């Protein structure tokens, strides 16, 4: 994903692909999404997703792992995502009880492609997690494909490139 910025056409960086107002809306949207994830607001986060052919993808082993020949940490279409929400809300999902306390900061938010009402946005994040006396720092990059709808921006797909996706990791007991 770094490549998408490093190799971006000059106008992606110089003029930017969207006007300042849209850029600010994108930043506010990603901040809202981050806050909903930090606060485990599963229904409101789910409502940010748009359409039936959504994809929530967290690759494993490498950022480019092909899901048809390799595994992902998360590879959810809408039905799998809905099951995930059901489980996260369930009081017997022990890894989520107690809930982790989370705060994340999003930065480097740059639209790298615009097609009709769809905008592809890259960003980076640092996420602090504390739970049962242990603190973890998670880091990564995100690629969102957002749709600009009458109700505001919505997520069509989201790919999360965890920095440690090739390493042994503890429970990822929250949304990234």
């Amino acid at each position, binding site marked *: 994903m770094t490549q998408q910025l490093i190799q971006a056409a000059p106008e992606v960086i110089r003029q930017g692909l969207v006007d300042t107002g849209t850029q600010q809306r994108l930043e506010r949207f990603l901040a809202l999404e981050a806050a909903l994830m930090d606060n485990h607001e599963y229904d409101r986060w789910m409502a940010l997703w748009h359409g039936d052919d959504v994809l929530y993808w*967290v690759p494993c082993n490498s950022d480019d792992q092909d899901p048809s020949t390799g595994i992902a*940490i998360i590879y959810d279409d809408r039905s799998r995502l809905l099951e995930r929400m*059901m489980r996260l809300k369930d009081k017997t999902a022990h890894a989520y009880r107690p809930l982790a306390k989370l705060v994340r900061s999003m930065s480097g938010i740059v639209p790298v492609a615009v097609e009709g009402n769809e905008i592809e946005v890259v960003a980076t994040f640092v996420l602090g997690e504390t739970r049962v006396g242990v603190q973890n720092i998670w880091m990564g990059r995100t690629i969102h494909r957002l749709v600009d709808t009458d109700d505001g921006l919505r997520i069509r797909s989201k790919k999360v490139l965890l920095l440690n996706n090739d*390493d042994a*990791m503890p*429970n990822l*007991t929250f949304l990234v």
Partner: protein
Amino acid sequence: MTTLIPIGRDYESLVQEDRVHSAVFTDEEIFQDELERIFHRTWVFALHESEIPNAGDFKRLQLGRYPVIATRDEEGGLHLLINRCRHRGAQVCESNHGNTRRFQCWYHGWTYDCRGDLVGLTGPEGYDENFDPTQHGLTPVPRVESYRGFVFASFAKEGMSLSDYLGPTKPYIDIMVDASPTGELEVKPNVLNRTRYRGNWKQVGMDGYHPHYVHMSVFKIFSKRESTTGSAVGALQLEDPFSDASTSRTRGFPNGHAALDFREQRQPHADNAIAELRQSEDGARYVDDMIKAYGEERARDLIAWHGDPHLGIFPNLQLIHGHVRVVVPIGPGETEVQMYPVFLKGVEPSINEKRLRSHEAFYGPAAAGSPDDAEIFERTQRGLIADIDPWVPLARGMHREQVDEDGSVVAYISDEITQRAQMKEWKKLMTAKK
């Protein structure tokens, strides 16, 4: 979450037939002894042949305290070499896997080939004729043997053969391999989940007593699903395989191996599984190829069993659902678990893809199953520290054990046969004379 208590470490008394002392899960010195007496002495799983198929392929492993490189030479031979330069000891391989002709130590430049032979001695004029390069190759692991592609290592120069060690578990390993119509699996060194938990390595594995409680959230969700195709876990909705009223069984084998044996429980579901497969062209071809390869009866069983032996080979290998699981002990209170999904050879890609998705749903750091297991292992480690009342009873089902024809001990699915088999072997190895 570990202890260092002078309890005498009398392994004879710490492990009894129906109970174990919690120090075996928490004690630092016991853990070091485990590495010496178990991981450095008995057969341990290294890797699957298919992970390094070509000349020059290599993969880095950790076996007990020893870093090891698995390599493939030009003649197709497989080598397990200690990853330690024979000069002053630096590791010569740092990549997890790859392909190379040489391993060069970057401390003083000594170079080794895929067989471990020292082929490049830097500044040879500094050594006289007493220096024998053939005595300075990378140290090979003393014994390497394999069964159906599963390669095991033993650091003991002598001992029982792998074949004897596996004994009656071999037909169970076959269940996983023969899920492929060509009887071949592919394991990829770079396709795996790696998770860590702050708990003891002996917790991971065969326990038919925990699913109702640890995985309750998953039971609830699968019960709402319509289709369960391709997922052995998904077959839960058909009837509860973890009920003692079911035909599921726990089994303890010689040498510490254990299984949750779902064979009989799954057999009646063969028709359903085949009907679901036949709904797609690729699935129908799989069914036909399986029948061609194994005959109708065996193919039906193999399809009903989903390639899932649910088998634990002591101390570090488990074959569960569609994956090869390797348990890597880091410390008494820290464990890494590696889960490699297996790919079936001789099937359409969509079959493997479906298996991948079903693996992902339950296993891995953000999936529906593994995190709850890890969480409970961590709670267990925090509890076991309280050794005021140190005994952990493992007596469940002792009164209803039976010995089967193959020599395994068998009882109901929730019985602690599996734990007892593991700890019996543990005690045997921990108390064995060198």
